[in-house]
Structures are given as C-alpha cells and as structure tokens.
C-alpha cells in the first residue's frame, strides 16, 4: 500500500494531471446525465401542475409534447356527460417558432380558459390574460430576449401585449407561452379546435372504469397524467439516448486512457524496483495489488473531484444559461464513481501484464 502511495506521489504534478483527466471525464459523464435528468423534469413540468387525473387526447396520440392532438368537435361535452367526471378543462396547444433578435425560439403555445385552469401555475409578475391580444411569457424566455411586461410582440402576424411572466415553464429546447383559448383558436385559424382535455373526477371514484369509458368515446384516448408524462419522457429519451450513450462511451474511454498512461509510466519507471521485489520472493499478486491500488487511488480521487466539478459546473451553467436545468442525481453519482473504479481496473491491465512478464534476474544483469 505504502509503495503504491510512494510511486504515485513521487511525481506530484503527474498525479495531479491524471486526477484532472479522470475528473474531467467523470464530470462530462455526470453533466450529460444531469442534463438529461434536468430535461426530464422540465418535460413533465406542465403535466406536474395540470389539474385533474386524466388527459383526453386524440385517439392514437399519447404525448403532450411531440404530436399535435386534434379532438373531435363536441369532445368536451361528451366527456363531461360521462358519470363520475366533474370537469373537463380544454386546452389548444401547438409548437411554434418565434424569432427574437434574429434567433429562432421554439415555444409551446397553450390556449386556455383562465377561469378553468390549464394555464401557468405560477405568475411571478403581472397577471393572466384577460383579452385575446394578451399573452403570458415564461420569465426565463422573457429575460433572455429583453421582453418586459407591457411589451408588444407579433405572433403569427397578430399583435400581442405581454401581461404576465410565468415561472417553471421553460426548458433548453422550448418555453411555454400562454394565451386565452379564443385567441389561440383565432391565431391557428381553427375555431372550436381542442387539443386536450384535462379531466377531473369525483373524489374516491375508481379511475380505471372511467378511463375505459372515456377511451371508448369516438376519436379519443384517455390517459392518466402519469402515463402521459411517462410517454413524453420515453419520446425524448429515445431522441437523446443514442447521442448521449456515444458521448458517455467516449468520456469513459478517455478516463481509462488517462489512468492507464499514468500507471503504466509509473510502473515502467519503477521496473527495477519491482524486479528486485520479485527477486526477493514477492509473488505476482502482491505486485498486481500495488498497481491496482495506484490505479484505484488515481481513479477514485479523479472521480470524487469529477463529482464536485460536475456540481460546480452545473451551478455555473444554470447561472449563465437559466434555460438549462442540470440535476445531479445521487444514483448517477454512484454510477460515475463505479465507472471510475471500472476505469481503474481496465487501466491496470497493461501494467499488470508488464509486471507478470518481468524477469527477476533482469535487474541483476543491468
């Protein structure tokens, strides 16, 4: 153990650089994971705060974000006529691309009835829209583009005044913009169109029978809020998982290379000493242990520093770019530290082979 320490600490700068390399690789893995975890929270934020137990969508549409849902005319009345249903809050929603300061900004437009719900759940400044030419903007989006209360904006050729700023309604991809249902109908040239119904039921009513009845209505599917959240998460996970896995794989290999290089060079430098140890009767497994401990020390220190760096980098990114939510989860930290240990074990393989082949007599011949 002390030999392993001694070998590693002999060249302090080399040790520090190796820790930095592993730390950066672990940080990258954690940031990627934190980015995904944060995005998942942002994806479900609307449904997390939506009223009711069910979302009724167009038949075949199982997502809030992703597909445009078009409910049959009269859907609200049919749903509200079902026994056990207390209220069906309609919304008309659509992704749109707005342009601010020559930058494209995707927004998720939600037309809602302020008296019924389905709109912003926290207005930090201003108020809900009272008229058809008023909108509530997400506060982060507003800040990023210098939009203030009272500002006039054009959306799809119509003029609007910003009357409120909402909180918790943004992600790095898109932000929510809320307006009255009638304004959305006019803007999208779709009178009477409804995308989703947020359905509340009488307290204590079993949900499954109601869901079955609602899904049996022509052209409609009823999903529990939790189901729709899971569908949205799955949809985005499918989009981001392949690139993410590729990047995590590269970061992992980098970590292995860095630890491998340090342990290998440290072993080569001490080849004579290892030879002497072998000559005086030290079995191979003792030497493997020395190399293994060195690799573990470098990886573990790097992994721990990587966790701290990821946390700090996450805070910095969120401060500079508030549309990002980076959530460093405990399970990901454990996994990253685990990856650090795997890095160490793989990195120790080449030096271990070198030691296994080392001839004790060689040291006396030099």
């Amino acid at each position, binding site marked *: 153990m002390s030999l392993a320490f001694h070998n590693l600490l002999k060249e302090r700068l*080399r040790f520090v650089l190796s820790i930095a390399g592993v730390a950066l690789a672990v940080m990258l893995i954690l940031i990627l994971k934190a980015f995904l975890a944060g995005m998942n929270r942002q994806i479900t934020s609307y449904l997390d705060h939506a009223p009711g137990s069910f979302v009724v969508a167009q038949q075949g549409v199982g997502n809030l974000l992703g597909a445009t849902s*078009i409910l049959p005319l009269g859907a609200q009345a049919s749903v509200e006529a079902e026994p056990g249903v207390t209220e069906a809050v309609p919304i008309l929603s659509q992704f749109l691309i707005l342009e601010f300061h020559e930058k494209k900004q995707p927004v998720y437009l939600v037309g809602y009835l302020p008296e019924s719900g389905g709109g912003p759940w926290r207005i930090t400044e201003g108020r809900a829209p009272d008229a058809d030419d008023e909108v509530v903007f997400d506060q982060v989006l507003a800040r990023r583009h210098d939009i203030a209360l009272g500002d006039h904006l054009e959306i799809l050729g119509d003029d609007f005044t910003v009357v409120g700023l909402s909180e918790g309604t943004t992600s790095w991809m898109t932000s929510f913009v809320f307006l009255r249902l009638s304004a959305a109908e006019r803007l999208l*040239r779709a009178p009477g169109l409804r995308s989703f119904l947020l359905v509340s039921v009488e307290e204590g009513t079993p949900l499954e029978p109601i869901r079955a009845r609602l899904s049996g209505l022509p052209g409609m599917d009823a999903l529990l809020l939790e189901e729709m959240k899971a569908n949205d998460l799955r949809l985005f996970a499918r989009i981001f998982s392949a690139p993410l896995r590729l990047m995590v794989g590269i970061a992992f290999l980098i970590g292995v290379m860095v630890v491998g290089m340090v342990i290998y060079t440290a072993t080569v430098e001490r080849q004579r000493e290892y030879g002497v140890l072998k000559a005086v009767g030290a079995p191979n497994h003792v030497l493997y242990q020395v190399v293994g401990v060195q690799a573990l020390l470098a990886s573990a220190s790097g992994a721990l520093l990587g966790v701290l760096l990821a946390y700090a980098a996450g805070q910095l990114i969120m401060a500079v770019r508030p549309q990002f939510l980076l959530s460093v989860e405990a399970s990901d930290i454990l996994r990253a530290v685990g990856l650090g240990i795997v890095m160490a074990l793989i990195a120790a393989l080449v030096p271990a082979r070198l030691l296994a082949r080392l001839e004790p007599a060689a040291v006396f011949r030099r």
Partner: protein
Amino acid sequence: MNRLAIRNLVQSKRVVLISVGGVTLALLLMLTLDAIFTGVERQITAYVDFSGADIWVSQESVRNLHMTTSSLPAGVAERVGEVGGVAEAVPILYLSNMIVTGEDRHLAYVIGLPPDASMGGPWRLAEGRPLSGSGQAIIDRSVAEGSGTSVGDEVEILGRALEVVGLAEGTASLVNSVAFIAAEDFAQLRGGGEAVSFVLVRVAVGAETASEVAARIETEVEGVTALPRAEFAAEERRVVRDMSTDVVTIMNLVGFLIGLAVMALSVYVATLSRRSEFGVLKALGAKTSDLNRVVILQSLLSVGIGFVLAAALTFALSMIIPSLSANLTLRLSAASLLKVAAASVVIAGAAALMPVRQIARLDPAMVFRGK
C-alpha cells in the same frame, strides 16, 4: 532536434499510443457532437430539399415546417397559381402526429397530398407504390422495419386505420419521420375547415429566379410568406443551430479541457521520462530554446496525429452508426474540422508549457550526479 522529438515520441510506443489515444478521444468528442448536430440539420431539411418545390408558401411570418404550424385559407393555392412566373402550385396539409403500429407510437410529420400531386410526395420508394386514393398511407421504411409493418398492413394515423401502400426511403430523422396520406383523409380527420398548410410552387422554366417570383407572390397574395426552397431549408437549419448552440458550446468546452488535460499529462510524462537525456543535451551545450522546440514539436506531433485520427474516426462513425441506429446520422463539416484543428493547436501549445518550465529549471550538472 526535430529528429529527437520524433525519436522521443516513438521510443515508448505504449505511452505514445495512450497519449495520442487520449487526445484523439477528446477531439473525437468535439467532432462527434458537431457531426451529430450537422447530421440532424441535414436530416430535418430532407423533406424540404426533396419536395420538388422551388418556393414554399406559408402563413404570414411562418418560416419553418418543423415545430410549428401554418394555416392558409382554402383557395390560396389558386391565387398563388395565378401569379406571374408560377408554373404550378400544389397545396399540402401538414401536422405533427403519431403513426400507431400495434402498441408502438412513432412521432411523424403527416403530409396530406392532393391526388396526383407533382410535388411534396415521397422522393424514393423502397417498396410499394404511390398513393392512389383515400384510406392509404406511405410511411418511412425504418419505422416499418422497427415495428414489423409491411406493405398491405394497417397503421393508425390521425386516429384512423390506413393501409400501408408504400415504404419511403430517407424520410426519418433522429426525432421523427414523415408519413404521407391523401389530403381528403387528412382534412376529414383533422376537421377545422378547408384550410391548407403550405403551397408548394414550381417556377416556370425561363421565368425569373425563385427569389423574384417569391417576392411577387408575397406582394400579390395577402397574408402569406413565400421563400425559395434554399432559403426555407436554411431557416430549418437555423432552428437546430439556434437550439443547439449553447449545448454544443458547453460540450466543446468540456472536450477542449479534457484534451488539454490529457495532452498536458502525456507531454509532461514524456518529458519527465527523458529528463536525463535533456540534461545531457544541456550539458553538451544545447540551448534551452532548442530543447523547448523539441517539447513543442513533440506536443504538436501528438496532437496532429490525434486530430487526424479523430477526424478519421468521426468519418468512420458517420459510416457505421447509421447502420446501427437507423435514425442517427453523423456528418463531418469543414467548419467543424477547422474549429477543432484550431483548438488542437491551442491544446498542443498549452500542453507544452509545463515541460518547457521543467526544462528551463533543469540543471545540466544533475546528469553527472546520476539523477
């Protein structure tokens, strides 16, 4: 001295392998991320690029197809068709919806095509035939393969069961695919009147340029935005670019820092192991500047090899990955290569700083003391 740098590099092959490998991976990280986004940019403009239209006409101030909606009053296609320089105007319907195959749901841009549409349809059919009427659909081949659907099977689009009559090639992206159905079915399933989404325009042969005709359409037809195809596609690419700029910047920075740490470590380690040789050279009268040159050259060589390998690997990945993950396309761009090459030079220079200091402090007498 140049020879010494090369000899130093190749003497310990494993260390070179690891250091070049490390820097290759760090640069690969930067190049791959760029390639993913460039690939997505290309994928999302595929439908626009291959639509066959010279001009895209949309609702006023709508300049995109993706993540947005466009609604034009019925009859607008006729008015656009009457504008001078327009050879043909085809109205299409468009909506982001789901293709439901059994229990699977696939996000898709659903395009409603009028009968015998000369523009806006699938540009390459891998199997089957074009749409010939109501109740039919053409979906992307990779979606069909992924869900075990064949020509003749039924899928659900906009909540209605439709027969798959053809499988299109090249219409899927990382995010979604394109599905084609009859405009008649689309309008009926969507409801909400006779509005159309876009009008695709072919410019008359020998007439003015697409830009001139587009400008005339905007002047003569009220409430529309008309953009030549290339401009419309550029607007699509801007959506991806504007959305991804921050992510790419953050990841590039991390890749740069990792590359820097790996390179600094390897040049430092290489210099450290040759310390006594450098001492001998100093004792023999070599100037510190000469030795610095060796270290810098060594660093540049490693990073240079790393850069070439990273570019080659990214290129190889762009060939391999599409066959593993049908909808992820990587595309290496010249701009990205230039950016990463510039970062490599900075990495090589910065990595050599510490060994340069090490050499400056090196005492030639130490070699005689046996250190």
